[in-house]
């Protein structure tokens, strides 16, 4: 197995804050890897260490076999980072931004202009090539930012929350891009707060919380670690929450997972029990919508691992 990234006991402190508290990762080459966790979990700090922007306080990180502290220059030659905020010059046009980065990567002026035009085309930004980036929409900014990271093919591309704040259509476009970049042989490491995003994109993922990896594996691994099937449903009338809880508690014991204000995600061992529960709710005239019986979602996984829902934390 070739590892693109290996870390051992990575610790990073900022004053009294322990942003990373012993992160161990092994990320395979040529894959999409997700770092999943709420705000402040340590995802961004992790990739900033891996991209040589931060020095670890303790521990060791090898990126493509090079130590991020002692061989930072070698690492920088082979990785690209797209930060959380569009790291392009808003005063410049899209084309000028890409020429700038191309030149700084060593392309001649002619090649830089050609490459910029080529990337703008590939990212669907040709029409906006001559407009200042400050006039771009969120999705366009994200794309120009990712394009700037792909002027030359990095061995590893770090994407910090690539779709935060994007509308669904732009999010789909970015997802599609990430898949294409990965299929061209680049290892993509992305952070996300969206469980769905990690589920849809990443072959493997690490769940990070309080600066530690609390779970690692494929989406399937993580879900099966929670075990069994889960019955999801939402209440038609959130006012009946207490009533619904009582019925669930009576039948299932304490297996309720509050997946949201009006949502329930309940571990069930067999379908008959699920049917019985739905029946009791119906008889008590508790209206149920959006019900499904299936494998647990990553939300359920996160809750099982941390004892609190992912969404609430990330909203904070």
């Amino acid at each position, binding site marked *: 197995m070739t590892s693109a990234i290996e870390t051992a006991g990575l610790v990073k402190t900022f004053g009294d804050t322990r942003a990373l508290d012993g992160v161990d990762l092994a990320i395979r080459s040529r894959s999409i890897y997700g770092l999943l966790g709420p705000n402040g979990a340590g995802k961004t700090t992790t990739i*900033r260490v891996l*991209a*040589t*922007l*931060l*020095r670890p306080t303790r521990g060791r990180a090898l990126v493509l076999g090079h130590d991020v502290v002692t061989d930072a*220059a070698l690492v*920088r*030659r*082979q*990785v*690209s*980072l797209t*930060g*959380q*905020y*569009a*790291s*392009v*010059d*808003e*005063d*410049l*046009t899209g084309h*000028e931004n890409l020429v*700038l*980065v191309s*030149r*700084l*990567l*060593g*392309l001649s002026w002619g*090649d830089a202009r050609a490459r910029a035009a*080529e*990337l703008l*085309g*590939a*990212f*669907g930004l*040709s029409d906006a090539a001559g407009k*200042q980036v400050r006039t771009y929409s969120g999705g366009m900014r994200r794309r120009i930012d990712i394009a*700037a990271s*792909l*002027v*030359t*093919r990095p061995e590893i591309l770090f994407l910090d929350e690539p779709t935060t704040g994007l509308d669904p259509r732009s999010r*789909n*476009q970015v997802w*599609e*891009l990430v898949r*294409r*970049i990965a299929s*061209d042989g680049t290892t993509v490491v992305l952070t996300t707060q969206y469980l769905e995003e990690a589920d849809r994109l990443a072959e493997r993922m690490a769940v990070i919380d309080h600066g530690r990896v609390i779970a690692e594996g494929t989406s399937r691994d993580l879900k099966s670690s929670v075990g069994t099937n889960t019955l999801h449903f939402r209440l038609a009338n959130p006012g009946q929450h207490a009533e619904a809880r009582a019925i669930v508690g009576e039948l299932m014991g304490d297996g309720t997972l509050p997946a949201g204000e009006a949502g329930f995600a309940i571990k069930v061992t067999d379908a008959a029990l699920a049917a019985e529960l739905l029946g009791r709710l119906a008889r008590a005239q508790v209206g149920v919508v959006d019900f499904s019986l299936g494998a647990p979602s990553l939300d359920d996984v996160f809750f099982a691992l941390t004892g609190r829902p992912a969404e609430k934390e990330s909203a904070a």
Partner: protein
Amino acid sequence: MSAGEMPGETDALVMRARPRPVSALAATATLAWRAMLKIKHVPFQLFDVTITPIMFTLLFTYIFGGALGGSPRTYIQFLLPGILVQTILFITVYTGVGINTDIQKGLYDRFRSLPMWQPAPVLGALAGDLFRYSVAAALIIGLGLMLGFRPAGGAVGVLLAFGLVLVFAFALSWIWIIIGMKVKTPESVMTASFAFMMPLTFASNVFVGLDTMPGWLRAVVRHNPVTHLTTASRGLMHGHPVAADVAWVFAASAAIVAVAAPIALRLYHQER
């Protein structure tokens, strides 16, 4: 989603290997080009550089000129080299503002993760400043000539004076680079600038000679590098260069750079 929604070819994503890293000179030149583009796209940023010095020149020449120098025309011979010094030193603040903005926008993260000579962004920004200084200097001197400024040193003297002011301005820029890297917002850079630049330029001989100042102030003003710079610029423009003051400016500039540049570059490498 369908392939049609994402225009373009996958081919563009299949990138060639990275070329040889860019040379230090090419990186700096590229970032200087970026500084020029920013001026082209946001010409408004030249407003401060152009309007303020014009106002100051007119204000001091016509309102205070008679009182300070006998007549506006006499006074402007004294004032103009000083206004040039003051204006250009004030513009050095924008170096700090620009760097602070780049850091806040995450642009320096990209620069720092590129395999290039790392001081290039800082030096490229200084090249953009050179353009601003030149615009401001051309305006002030042009306006001065219209108002009756007659430098005995001729064009050569004026250019030499401008060159000397540049030397000191570039040295001073390093202090703004440090401030730009340390504070949280571009606005804080501007706030810091007033606390620092007002005393530095007003407690000098830019507007009046030392004769009328109280003794204790005269002692301070005499050691202000801006005083030496102004005296030297006046000397060069009016054809009686003052070697000691020119030497003083070079020495002060070298001292500032020797201390501030290493600090600034270390801060640049420091994590944020």
